[in-house]
């Protein structure tokens, strides 16, 4: 197993434990984007976890805020806050709520949870970087269901108009939304063609292949004049056989036994073994 895969699986393990502990849903969505978040935080983002307020660094907006357990795991492991604090997840007055609150922890700029907000905010950040002559990039991760929102397409039309090469939108295309196959709820496909026709540099990749992820994510450069859209084909619940592509895990909470089983499948040492 590659080092990145090991990290991604550790993020998955934490997301599973947090879902169990906090009795919070959306686990399938947290697992589908773990590889994307691992690739971003360990290979792509130019960030300074010790000084997250410093303007000269890349920014990441998790627009699909319901998958924040994976982001919490990544931010803790990168040193934005103590790993031990993960155990306070969703406790009263914890800095780690089920969906992020403004300023809850360093490293999270936007309180997401209502879908369709992150791309516009990321566009604003990319514009601000350009106005302030900063060459840092802005990345945002959307869900496929989120692409139902009209605001996504407003932002998608705006970004190429203003040549925001410093902007990268990634769609975690796990093919499910809350209550059904995303393609059956709304005709998303061909999703990469939609972004392409709006004027984006578009890549359709296997969102669980680090080679493909890194290659596509590295295409986003401030020096270019076209924003980057990465349609990442993913599997909801990825990494755990009994959760993969089973949309019950949009809402289901794992039992203790399922947590153990899942962590064993992910090659993680369970806490009690």
């Amino acid at each position, binding site marked *: 197993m590659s080092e990145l895969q090991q990290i991604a699986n550790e993020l998955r393990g934490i997301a599973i434990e947090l879902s169990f502990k906090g009795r919070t849903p959306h686990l399938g969505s947290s697992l589908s984007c773990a590889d994307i978040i691992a690739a971003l935080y360990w290979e792509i983002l130019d960030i300074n976890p010790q000084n997250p307020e410093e303007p000269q660094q890349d920014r990441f907006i998790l627009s699909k805020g319901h998958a924040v357990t994976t982001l919490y795991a990544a931010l803790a492991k990168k040193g934005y806050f103590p790993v031990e604090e993960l155990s306070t997840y969703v406790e009263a007055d914890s800095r780690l709520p089920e969906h992020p609150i403004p300023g809850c922890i360093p490293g999270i700029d*936007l*309180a997401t949870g209502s879908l369709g907000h992150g791309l*516009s*905010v990321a566009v*604003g*950040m990319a514009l601000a970087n350009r106005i302030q002559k900063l060459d840092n990039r802005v990345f945002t991760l959307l869900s496929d269901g989120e692409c139902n929102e009209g605001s996504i397409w*407003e*932002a998608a039309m*705006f970004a190429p108009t203003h040549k925001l090469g410093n902007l990268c939108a990634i769609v975690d295309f796990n093919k499910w939304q809350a209550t059904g196959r995303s393609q059956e709820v709304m005709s998303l496909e061909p999703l990469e063609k939609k972004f392409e026709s709006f004027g984006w540099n578009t890549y359709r990749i296997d969102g669980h292949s680090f080679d493909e992820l890194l290659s596509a994510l590295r295409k986003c450069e401030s020096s270019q004049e076209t924003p980057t859209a990465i349609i990442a084909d993913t599997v909801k619940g990825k990494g755990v056989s009994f959760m993969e592509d089973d949309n019950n895990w949009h809402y289901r909470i794992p039992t203790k036994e399922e947590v153990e089983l899942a962590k064993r499948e992910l090659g993680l040492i369970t806490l009690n073994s």
Partner: protein
Amino acid sequence: MRNAFADEIVQLASEKKRLALLSGDIGNRLFDTYKERYADRFLNCGVAEANMVGMAAGMALSGLRPVIYTIASFLIFRPYEQIRLDIGYHNLPVVIVGVGGGLSYASNGGTHHSMEDIAVMRAIPGMQIISAGDAWEVRAGLRAAYESGKPTYLRIGKKREPLVHKDRIADFKIGKAIPLRDGDDASILASGNLLPFAKETSETLSRQGIETSLHSFHTISHLDEELLNKLFKREKPIFVIEEHNRNGGLGTAILEWANSQNRDTRLIHRLGAQNEFFHRTANQTEARGMLDLTAGHFLNRILEVTS
């Protein structure tokens, strides 16, 4: 008022290098001077208000101080969730300028009326609301909103509104009403487009021997509590004039405040429009007549109560 806004934003942008102006595809030619001088800090956001508001939040999160501008009805109602979450929830320094507040666009029909905007903006915690009574208040309100660094809705009229103030308002403060006339028989609090009518009403009353105090009560959130305390102690009628539906506007804000302070709420008379959609064809002057929002209507109402 919009010309005053366009002129003042040019001056403000020359002083404030972090200011960026975002417009929702309106104001053709209005911002020519601004665009000439600060092209890199102007964005025509198209007919996409939700994206405009979200982008403004992103810019504010990245160190800029955006001012966003379009027709009030489109700016408030369409992207309300973006205003509530992206700007309000994050307490970001964005100035939200709604042009054509109230009945300024009456002739365009109900799609363009904003008679409930203050009601919904009042519901957002921490949102400052300023309703400008003339062009001088537009200029002063814009500066105060920008300087405050807090989310602010600045509601302005459109064009050719009469001036009430004679010159630049030196001591404009958010949450501090501006005294315009003295009088002990009753008080008139007016905000926004109808301030000139309120002044006319107060002057006519004076000629009839009824002396009313008049304030431009430009800030709806947060209320000038010091003034309200003083006025309620007089135990004289308080008339609240606004180009907004009675439900949820300044009058309601004062009613709620009075109730919370155990003041006599019966003193308050809300002279706004009935809470109904306006379905008739009319320009602003005609619509005001049909909705009892003229100096004549205010005069009669005040005479009814005070005599």
